[in-house]
């Protein structure tokens, strides 16, 4: 498995301090989102009456709900793949597009996923008035936003690192852009992309559950699915039903993993370029083995192979090469300046519109309040990551150094990371309510409930990959105790730990919107923080505040990444990489 974090490796490493260019792109993205949100908001009124699915709490209905959830997931991931291929290719082929697209991606991934849902709800509902299809699309879009950015970063990163000799040989054989893309670039990127898709999928379960029962102001959507089932169970304070839902979810994730991703990951091994082989365990899948051995299955898939070969060798007309004069003018500095100017003007205008709109209802005091709330959530994230690290790093090292144990625990940890922790929230909330505990403290652990596993399984992976000769050397020189941890184990797993911790912290920010506010029947618990702020505003349909909350969170996340994680990540890559 790749021990790198695509979004961090993709961006030039020395840029810790956000630049003016970053600020412009930031303004562009957020301004656009604000405009979309406000634009949609103004037309939501007649759409309030959306078809409501009635959710039955009978466990026998669960398989059907699980199927619906699963299909949404599948649709989301297909959209993500298509987006990834187009966006990544565009960013790689065009220098000017790259300058804009990659920072945009960085901003998009820092925005809380659930706010995308809020902003686009009106749009999707309007697209298919009176039909449940709009709500379905909205849910699929949420899944898409929770995985597409990360996958695109991975793909783009791979495109940037295509081996030079393979790239040369493709030119020399005059494969042309289209065939080069499908025979060289996509296969080369496949292992990383599929691995990343699987990881993003883990995060996506959280959001599919959250998006199935969602309210923005007076607009409520309820889609038949496991998420809606749990939401209904919460309203009815039915712990038994929640137990059934958890069991069903476990089964669904298991099936998804075994039938879709294991085979895909094992199959993608064949696209590994020699250099990267030996990193990580050989993946295997019983299903893939079965298909590769069974004649019937081979025959079934033969047309697929023929179709894809036909697709790859499509001749999309003649390769278009503009005359040299046009090419030269197009590549010139002056066109660069025009491009910069256009982006700058667009960003400033859009940002101005957004700010002007928000200024109608919000003042400086609101901004300060949101930043204060952001600081509270930041403290929570920091403390939780620290606590989780204190627990899982020693345990992970201990497990990772025992190959038999690691083999058993690793899939379980990955499995737990995939499990949508919001299904478990009601259990915790019921406990808090029963014990009259402080929500400010006891709701916090929910933020990291689902994401702490990333730390665990990355540390296990790091410890498993730790070279045995180094361990033996340390042993033979009698290095033990604290000195062993400080000089041998911790530096060895640090690059892996950072990868896990980055994912965990990103997930925690996202989860805060669902975790800082929780309810149990009519009981409503609320912690102070930016997540609760956004959740509150969403419930009231207060768009200026939702946008403000999202902007503040995005700034916090970007700064947090740039100032803490990226330096640590670079340090790990430069000084502690074991090769």
């Amino acid at each position, binding site marked *: 498995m790749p021990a790198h974090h695509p979004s961090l490796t993709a961006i030039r490493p020395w840029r810790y301090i956000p630049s003016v260019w970053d600020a412009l792109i930031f303004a562009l993205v957020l301004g656009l989102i604000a405009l979309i949100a406000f634009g949609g908001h103004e037309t939501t009124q007649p759409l309030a009456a959306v078809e409501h699915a009635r959710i039955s709490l009978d466990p026998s209905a669960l398989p059907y709900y699980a199927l619906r959830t699963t299909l949404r997931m599948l649709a989301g991931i297909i959209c993500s793949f298509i987006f990834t291929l187009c966006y990544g290719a565009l960013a790689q082929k065009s220098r000017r597009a790259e300058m804009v697209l990659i920072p945009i991606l960085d901003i998009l991934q820092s925005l809380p996923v659930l706010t995308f849902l809020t902003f686009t709800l009106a749009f999707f509902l309007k697209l298919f008035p009176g039909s449940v299809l709009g709500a379905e699309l909205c849910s699929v879009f949420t899944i898409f936003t929770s995985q597409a950015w990360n996958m695109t970063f991975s793909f783009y990163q791979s495109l940037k690192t295509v081996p030079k000799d393979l790239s040369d040989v493709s030119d020399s054989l005059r494969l042309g852009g289209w065939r080069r893309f499908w025979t060289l670039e996509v296969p080369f990127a496949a292992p990383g992309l599929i691995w990343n898709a699987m990881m993003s999928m883990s995060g996506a379960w959280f959001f599919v559950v959250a998006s199935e029962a969602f309210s923005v102001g007076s607009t409520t959507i309820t889609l038949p699915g496991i998420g809606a089932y749990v939401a209904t169970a919460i309203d009815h304070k039915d712990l038994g039903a929640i137990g059934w839902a958890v069991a069903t979810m476990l089964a669904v994730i298991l099936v998804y993993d075994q039938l879709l991703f294991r085979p895909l990951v094992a199959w993608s091994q*064949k696209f590994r370029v020699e250099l990267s082989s030996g990193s990580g365990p050989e993946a295997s899948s019983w299903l893939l083995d079965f298909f590769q051995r069974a004649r019937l299955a081979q025959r079934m898939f033969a047309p697929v192979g023929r179709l894809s070969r036909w697709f790859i060798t499509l001749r999309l007309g003649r390769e278009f090469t503009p005359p040299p004069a046009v090419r030269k003018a197009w590549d010139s500095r002056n066109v660069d300046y025009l491009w910069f100017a256009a982006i700058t003007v667009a960003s400033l205008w859009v940002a101005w519109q957004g700010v002007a709109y928000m200024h109608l209802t919000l003042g400086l005091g609101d901004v300060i309040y949101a930043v204060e709330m952001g600081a509270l959530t930041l403290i929570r994230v920091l403390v939780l990551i620290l606590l989780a690290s204190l627990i899982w790093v020693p345990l992970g090292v201990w497990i990772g150094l025992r190959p038999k144990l690691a083999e058993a625990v690793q899939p379980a940890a990955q499995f737990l990371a995939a499990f949508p922790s919001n299904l478990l929230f009601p259990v915790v909330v019921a406990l808090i309510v029963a014990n009259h505990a402080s929500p400010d403290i006891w709701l916090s652990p929910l933020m990291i409930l689902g994401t702490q596993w990333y730390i665990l399984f990355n540390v296990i992976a790091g410890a498993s990959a730790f070279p045995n000769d180094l361990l033996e050397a340390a042993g033979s020189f009698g290095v033990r105790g604290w000195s062993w941890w400080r000089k041998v184990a911790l530096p060895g797993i640090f690059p892996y730990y950072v990868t896990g911790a980055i994912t965990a912290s990103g997930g925690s920010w996202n989860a805060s919107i669902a975790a800082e506010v929780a309810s149990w029947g009519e009981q409503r618990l609320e912690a102070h923080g930016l997540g609760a702020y956004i959740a509150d505003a969403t419930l009231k349909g207060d768009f200026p505040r939702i946008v403000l909350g999202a902007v503040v969170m995005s700034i916090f996340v970007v700064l947090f990444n740039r100032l803490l994680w990226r330096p640590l990540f670079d340090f790990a890559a430069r000084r502690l990489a074991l090769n």
Partner: protein
Amino acid sequence: MVMTSPATAPTPQRPEAGPVMLDIRNVRQTYSKGQANDLLVLDGINFQLREGEIVGLLGRSGSGKSTLLRIIAGLARPRGGDVTWQGQPIDGPPKGVAMVFQSFALFPWLTVLENVEIGLEPLGVPPAERRQRSLQAIDLIGLDGFENAYPKELSGGMRQRVGFARGLVVHPQLLLMDEPFSALDVLTAETLRTDLVDLWMEGKLPLRSILLVTHNIEEAVLMCDRVVIFASNPGRIAAEVKIDLPYPRNRTEPAFRQLVDDIYGRMTNPMDPKLRAEQMHGGADHPGGGIGMTLPQVSTNLLAGLMEALMQPPFDGKADLPDIADELTMEVDELFPLAESLQLLGFADVAHGDIRLTEDGRRFVDYDVDSRKKLFRDHLMARVPMAAMIRRVLDERSTHRAPYRRFSEELEDFMSEEFAEETLYALIDWGRYAELFAFDEQSQSFSLEDPA
């Protein structure tokens, strides 16, 4: 003698040297690093390739020979000059030219057969014919039975055979080979070379001509009709040697040895003005010396190792470069930087294909670790002005610290950023060994601190 006129009686089986296929005039190439610091990698290259020739481009790394090959392959565009292939200017990979890569460059996700076939698709060859021609090429190059294997499952030699098959299957007129044997072990490389030469001699290769980049002098003499020797800084053609030994050639023959010796001599001739710039001499009075001299990254272990090898019998302090290269199984691009570094430091003299240890060189071999370091330090200070300068700056400053940028900027007045970095890191390595100064990678700073 290579036949330049068709009137000369041809050797029966071999394709004869015919009309000019490839014409290169006044080609120059630069790599821009920053605005003012364009690095000249090729300058004033004039060269013709005729039908029926195997020509070798020989030179050390950095002499631009691979760059020239990439220009011919249409993978890079020259900054100046004209390159024409069959009378047409080259703009992108030309038809009728195929390339074999040092690293094989096989698609790991395609089988041997698919890897070979891939070059035929863009030519619009129908599937049945693709299959048939690929199988033929696989057969010719000795890969029968491996058609369905993936490159991962093959040994290095077999992989390069796939590379050859892929190059040959398109029936190119010219096959370009970029150090095709240098990633292989000695035995495998030799088998592949002889197989290729045999096929060429028997006229079984669907080729008119081969252009080979190499830094292995013996390989060039073994395979080529003509060897073009490159000089570096900037890359130029220094000499051309015609090789009229009959095939198959025998390495042990005196005439063969004589040619190898001769080429070594030409590559280290101190009188040749074209080779002048790349030969490093100590002291500021020499051209290429002074603060702005470039240094290759050469480990002090290798320097000491070479001196020790030179002191041992049968060399006793003096050796023919081909002999010592043989003894240590080193190729030109490994041996020359070492020999030249010794020359620069005043531990050896290199001229006319010979290397001879100086008095201090002999003394170095006899000394123990600490005395070696002291001797090395003295020579470094006396003969490498940049080393002396770093030490002086550190001595003068009250903190005894100086940032990396202080010296890299100094070097960038003379050379590209890339070369400045390489030179400075070479110096850091030597300076650390000589205990002349310390360097902290994290803070990118030089100091006099002794960690002890």
